[in-house]
């Protein structure tokens, strides 16, 4: 059989070479080394087979012997051969380490990196011209090793290591200085190391290397980026007469003829930009970077693959950059690349993530995506082989689904529904956790549905899956599953709520409210808030199974320290307090229950909180408990008064936050109405107010904006893709303002 013959031949040749490597004669050894080198360079298959035959330790041994045999001062013919042996064995080891993980591992296991460093890069050697070959060979090989993720970490904290590194950087040979730069790019990770390097003055040398050869330029750009990455302190210390020069130098290089250099220069500038807000902020440079990266996408190789990731890091979370990118047709350009089909997975992932970033904040981008029919390609990507691509597709979907247009289209036809929902639901069961989390993110947005047609999702068993995921060991999955459920249940029909609740069960909800992770607690409480919102009978859910949910809520409120949890909890109580008398009394019980070694009810702490959202939620609860139309309100008012709560509310009459102020005013009116005779009952009919459930904005919950028309007491929480509104009595307005 052909394959057997081939590998048999290979093994024979291989064994022959290895045999000759063990020869006592230097000539034979040298020849065998050269042959081995020529066999393996460029040939991954051969590298693997020679690896299996134990070539690496053998060659490392030869190198070690040769290094000891070299007499630096000597220069005769014998030494010539020994030097050649060093050069060739270094080259062989370097080649094994080139882009071949098993090779790197073997080389490191044989201690070859230390051998090469000691053997080829010792101080005396560069001084002798004849040793340049040895130095170069050693430097090349070490650079190969250091380009791998598995390379040993270079300890910058040791002084002698620092000195060695500096000597490498200052060396004339481009291979040696390139090695120095490679070490920095690979090993410098912590901010302490970045500072050490900066203080040691490496930037000066690196800047001069920017004007050197291609290899020096590229290596230097990578190192500079590594030193500045995420380190505002180092960047701010970068001020001085040299700064302007270095920056303008790099900006020039952005226009270099080699694509990889252009990419590295752009990345360098992006790192500096992101670390410090005072550099590179003018429109000119921003546009230049955007255009450069979009152009680099055209490169068919690895540069093109990585360009989209660089683009993402440039625009992520930055609305101004996204807007600029949109203006130069960024969305269209990305889409064109997406259309090309049979993309390398890395490139596919990069472009999807870039689109996700473009559409994260701007409606114009999302709208453009939808008009271009991007969704079709994205949905196809949901079934891709690579988990990174699947994950990126979900993130893209999540961003695009924030668009109003998207929601309108979703509601309009079930076709759109099914093509998107079905693959997403399938991903909830994905083998990769990251994909599951990303899918949950997308689902959280998609289940928002004002025509209450969440039926497709539920029909496909989505609820079961979400509930299952909410019991996951992984807290991120629990969190995101709850978020999706929270959105699903938001303003849902009674029947839908019932189905969901039956699947969830009261005990699960209660335990999630007491989850070890605070963020999970918050989502669980928000879910309950949405659950009990709506019709009066929704409130009953919280009393299921002897009221364990309500108890859990009360308990969390007493011990919680995170504002977000307290806010959700108070809104739950506030909503429950819109129910029947028994419901209101239950809320009173919870509020008046004191925590251990606490002198007063937790609600007083909330009323005094610095967070206006929390104060608002607390006042809502008080409002609902004391609404004039309920028979038990006066009794409750007395209890609240005795607990000192009423006086606190009265003190808030001049609260700086308008929301709070208005609520307090209403509350005071209510308090007073128990003293005076009831003025007009008709306008009091609508005094029952409910803090309506809330939609979880997947990225930024703080985008709630109270609508200007406070005179209508109509709070419009606008997330960028949907509207929540709460009904408040119109009559209150006419009394309040």
């Amino acid at each position, binding site marked *: 059989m*052909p*394959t057997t*013959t*081939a590998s048999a*031949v*290979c093994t024979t040749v291989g064994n022959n070479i290895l045999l000759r490597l063990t020869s006592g004669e230097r000539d034979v050894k040298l020849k065998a080394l*050269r042959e081995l*080198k*020529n066999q393996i*360079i*460029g*040939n*991954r*298959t051969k590298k693997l087979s020679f690896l299996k035959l134990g070539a690496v330790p053998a060659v490392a041994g030869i190198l070690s012997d040769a290094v000891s045999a070299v007499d630096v001062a000597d220069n005769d013919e014998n030494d010539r051969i020994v030097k050649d042996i060093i050069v060739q064995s270094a*080259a062989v080891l*370097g*080649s094994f380490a*080139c*882009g071949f993980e098993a090779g790197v591992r073997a080389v490191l296991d044989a201690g070859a990196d230390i051998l090469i460093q000691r053997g080829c890069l010792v101080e005396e050697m560069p001084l002798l011209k004849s040793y340049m070959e040895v130095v170069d060979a050693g430097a*090349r090989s070490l650079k*190969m090793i250091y380009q791998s993720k598995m390379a040993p970490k270079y300890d910058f904290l040791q002084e002698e290591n620092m000195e060695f590194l500096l000597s490498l950087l200052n060396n004339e040979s*481009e291979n040696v200085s390139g090695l120095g730069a490679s070490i920095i790019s690979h090993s410098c990770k912590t901010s302490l190391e970045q500072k050490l390097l900066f203080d040691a003055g490496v930037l000066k040398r690196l800047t001069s290397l920017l004007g050197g*050869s*291609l*290899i020096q330029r590229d290596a230097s750009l990578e190192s500079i980026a590594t030193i500045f990455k995420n380190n505002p302190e180092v960047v701010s210390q970068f001020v001085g007469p040299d700064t302007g020069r270095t920056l303008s130098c790099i900006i020039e290089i952005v226009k270099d*003829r080699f694509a990889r250099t252009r990419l590295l220069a752009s990345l360098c500038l992006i790192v500096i930009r992101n670390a410090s807000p005072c550099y590179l902020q003018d429109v000119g440079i921003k546009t230049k970077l955007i255009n450069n990266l979009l152009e680099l996408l055209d490169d068919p190789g690895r540069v093109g693959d990585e360009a989209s990731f660089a683009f993402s890091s440039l625009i992520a979370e930055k609305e101004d950059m996204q807007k600029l990118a949109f203006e130069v047709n960024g969305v269209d350009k990305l889409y064109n690349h997406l259309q090309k089909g049979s993309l390398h997975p890395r490139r596919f992932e990069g472009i999807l993530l870039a689109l996700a970033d473009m559409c994260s904040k701007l409606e114009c981008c999302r709208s453009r995506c939808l008009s271009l029919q991007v969704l079709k390609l994205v949905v196809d990507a949901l079934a891709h082989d690579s988990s990174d691509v699947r994950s990126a597709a979900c993130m893209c979907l999540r961003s695009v689904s924030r668009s109003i247009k998207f929601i309108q289209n979703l509601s309009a036809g079930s076709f759109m529904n099914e093509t998107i929902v079905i693959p997403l639901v399938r991903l909830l069961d994905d083998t990769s956790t990251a994909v599951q989390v990303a899918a949950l993110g997308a689902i959280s947005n998609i289940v928002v549905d004002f025509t209450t047609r969440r039926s497709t999702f539920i029909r496909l068993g989505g609820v079961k899956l979400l509930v299952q995921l909410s019991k996951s060991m992984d807290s991120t999955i629990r969190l995101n599953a709850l978020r999706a459920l929270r959105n699903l249940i938001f303003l849902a029909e009674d029947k839908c709520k019932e189905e969901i609740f039956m699947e969830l069960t009261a005990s699960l909800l209660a335990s999630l409210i007491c989850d070890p992770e605070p963020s999970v607690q918050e989502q669980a409480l928000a879910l309950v808030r949405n659950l009990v919102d709506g019709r009066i009978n929704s409130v009953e859910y919280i009393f299921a199974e002897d009221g364990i949910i309500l108890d859990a809520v009360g308990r969390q409120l007493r011990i919680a320290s995170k504002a977000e949890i307290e806010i959700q909890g108070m809104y739950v109580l506030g909503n429950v307090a819109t129910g029947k008398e028994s419901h209101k009394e239950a809320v009173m019980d919870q509020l008046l229950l004191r925590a251990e070694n606490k002198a007063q009810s937790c609600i007083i702490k909330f009323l005094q909180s610095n967070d206006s959202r929390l104060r608002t939620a607390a006042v809502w609860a008080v409002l609902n408990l004391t609404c004039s139309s309920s028979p038990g309100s006066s009794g409750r008012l007395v209890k609240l008064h005795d607990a000192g709560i009423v006086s606190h509310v009265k003190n808030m009459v001049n609260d700086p936050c308008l929301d709070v102020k208005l609520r307090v005013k209403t509350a005071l009116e209510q308090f007073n109405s128990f003293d005076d005779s009831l003025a007009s009952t008709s306008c009091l009919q609508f005094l029952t107010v409910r803090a309506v459930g809330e939609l979880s904005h997947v990225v930024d919950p703080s985008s709630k904006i109270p609508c200007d028309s406070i005179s209508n007491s109509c709070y419009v929480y606008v997330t960028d893709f949907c509207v929540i509104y709460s009904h408040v009595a119109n009559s209150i307005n006419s009394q309040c303002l």
Partner: protein
Amino acid sequence: MSLFWIVIRQLAEIEAMAMSKKVITREEWEKKLNDVKIRKEDMNKLVMNFLVTEGYVDAAEKFRMESGTEPDIDLATITDRMAVKKAVQCGNVEDAIEKVNDLNPEILDTNPQLFFHLQQQRLIELIRNGKVEEALEFAQEELAPRGEENQSFLEELERTVALLAFEDVSNCPVGDLLDISQRLKTASEVNAAILTSQSHEKDPKLPSLLKMLLWAQNQLDEKAAYPRINDLATATLEDPAI
């Protein structure tokens, strides 16, 4: 060659002139050409750049001695590079590979496409010399793994292996692989890779200049009738049609 420079400068000035097709007589043209000044040093550099990039070592050495122009790369490295190029052009691919690896072991390790083309050339040479069995073995052992490692090579691989299927190789559909031009193509690719690794530009400047000239003339054709250079080799001005 000085004419080329002159014409380009001239055209730059003409660009600013009127839109309607102007007629420029030979006399006027030549007068303007004479006014343009080109430095001899610039021309020498261009020539040196051409000789060095194309690898004419002896000529470059001689030119350096006669004109005093310094080459922008070390002439010694040119010798090595030329040895590689020559080896490929003669069909000694194995020798070429060894030389490249001696020069810089990183080149073939980081350039899978180049390495594949060199292996491909080796196979072609084996077939050319009628060593069919050896060729088969080589294809299985060396080329097939390249195709496995990298899908994009499969098509070319198939074409090359197809050579083995035909008795009359020089007349088969993939016979062009046996042309000398294939060798030259591979040689050129190696040359370019070595130049890039030495941070040198892989193309000489001279062809770009000529391209610029032709482009500029085409642009001017829309606006004027003037003495054109139609034969780049002789660079003679041909009168405008009146």
